[in-house]
């Protein structure tokens, strides 16, 4: 299989409300910036792939609107996934592996602010057994947190510790939406939101976009001094029957990690897409990360969670640290669906 590497990544400011800016206006600056960072233009891109969600935009074929942000004349080769853009990256890798492309542009975007995100996400569930009951994303995550608390596999202190670490790490991330120095005690003193979750256990609602460049080996070496090589990537999904899953575990993450080759690597950084605090603990266990691995130095999704980009952001942050020489081997994870239903795991190395 041909080698491929991430050679550029840019994320917009993570904001609760992007004002009057439309999706194209969110995408255009990050696409321009990532291409300038390696000195290429749209005519150098062999394949463009985006991740977005029609339900968030409230219109069918919403990704077409996003294409206003890239130059599409003369015609380009382009595709789209109705998923987090981490899966758009996967599609681009298929193009590179099969020799169809050498340089690919990936972007993910959304404005979640105009709607009620908790309810919009309900629409991704089983249309006969789940959607008519309107179980919102926070309530479903709370079912998972309670199952873990009941099983004794974590405590509320453990959850608060994840939040405290995220807020602290985000102080060093200028793009973060939520950053603060806080304490476990102060967090546990906050009232419940959807019990057992507190508001800070839930990722914020964020508007924004991210862009990433991935290239085949020769192109990567030509354009980037220290590419972040993708050594393994895999994604797996669990049943849509919520009750049939063991919510305290994530077998799909474990399986994807085995296929991506996480075990035995000298992992020194990790970014895990955990929109809820307890999910970071599940993921860390399933990935088999040792306590010495710095998890989510960016602050993670709890510090800013652009739907359809937050998974790609995990890969982008790991890649950036490798490209800058701050890390040598990283694990990145992206998720989709209720209670970590679908998971993608990637291993990147210098």
């Amino acid at each position: 299989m041909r080698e491929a590497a991430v050679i550029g990544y840019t994320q917009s400011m993570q904001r609760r409300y992007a004002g009057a800016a439309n999706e194209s206006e969110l995408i255009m600056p990050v696409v321009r910036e990532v291409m300038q960072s390696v000195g290429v233009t749209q005519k150098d891109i062999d394949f463009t792939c985006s991740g977005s969600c029609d339900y968030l935009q409230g219109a069918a074929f919403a990704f077409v609107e996003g294409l206003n942000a890239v130059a599409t004349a003369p015609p380009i080769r382009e595709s789209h996934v109705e998923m987090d853009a981490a899966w758009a990256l996967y599609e681009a890798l298929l193009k590179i592996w099969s020799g169809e492309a050498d340089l690919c542009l990936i972007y993910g975007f959304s404005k979640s602010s105009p709607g009620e995100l908790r309810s919009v996400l309900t629409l991704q569930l089983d249309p006969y057994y789940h959607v008519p009951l309107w179980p919102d994303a926070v309530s479903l995550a709370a079912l998972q947190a309670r199952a873990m608390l009941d099983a004794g596999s974590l405590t509320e202190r453990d959850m608060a510790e994840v939040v405290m670490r995220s807020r602290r790490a985000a102080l060093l991330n200028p793009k973060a939406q939520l950053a603060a120095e806080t304490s476990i005690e102060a967090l546990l003193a906050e009232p419940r939101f959807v019990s057992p979750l507190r508001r800070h256990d839930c990722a914020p609602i964020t508007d924004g976009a991210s862009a990433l460049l991935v290239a085949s080996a020769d192109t990567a070496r030509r354009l980037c001094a220290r590419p972040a090589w993708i050594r393994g990537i895999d994604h797996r999904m669990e049943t849509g029957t919520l009750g049939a899953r063991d919510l305290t575990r994530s077998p799909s993450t474990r399986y994807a990690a085995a296929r991506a080759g996480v075990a035995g690597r000298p992992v020194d950084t990790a970014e895990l897409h955990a929109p809820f605090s307890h999910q970071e603990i599940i993921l860390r266990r399933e990935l088999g990360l040792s306590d010495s691995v710095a998890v989510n130095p960016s602050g993670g999704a709890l510090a800013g969670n652009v739907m359809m980009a937050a998974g790609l952001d995990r890969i982008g942050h790991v890649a950036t640290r490798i490209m800058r020489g701050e890390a040598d081997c990283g694990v990145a994870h992206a998720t989709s669906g209720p209670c970590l239903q679908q998971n993608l795991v990637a291993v990147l190395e210098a």
Partner: protein
Amino acid sequence: MAETNPELLTKSFELGYTYTRSTGPVIGHFLTELREGRIVGTRTSDGRVLVPAAEYDPVSAEALTEFVSVAEEGVVTTWSWVAEPISHHLLQKPFAFALVRLDGADVPMLHMVDAGEEGAMRTGMRVRVRWAAERRGSITDIACFEPA
């Protein structure tokens, strides 16, 4: 407007798609039984009973065809407390979303529990179905569960 100006014709309009979807032999059977006030699941190859009836085995992906009747009562296996319902929620008062494992089933189903207050909820509590006043072949024919 029509009253003040009888020349104007008015008509209500709802934007929607005119598709009809068949729920098929498994989900359709579950919903039809629900309309009759009965709850059924499907049996998997390893003998487990899935409720609501599932079309395919979550592990082996095998098509499931054997229906099994289960009880109207069961046990809460996990729950979340919605202190402040949002506009879409069907219960406009504090309630729980819960996974409820009905007697005779091996897998819990997602639904709501009307317990009044959070202090009345606990994992392992027994609950029973509260049927909707009018049943029409929908998962909402179960209005919610209530403490048994």
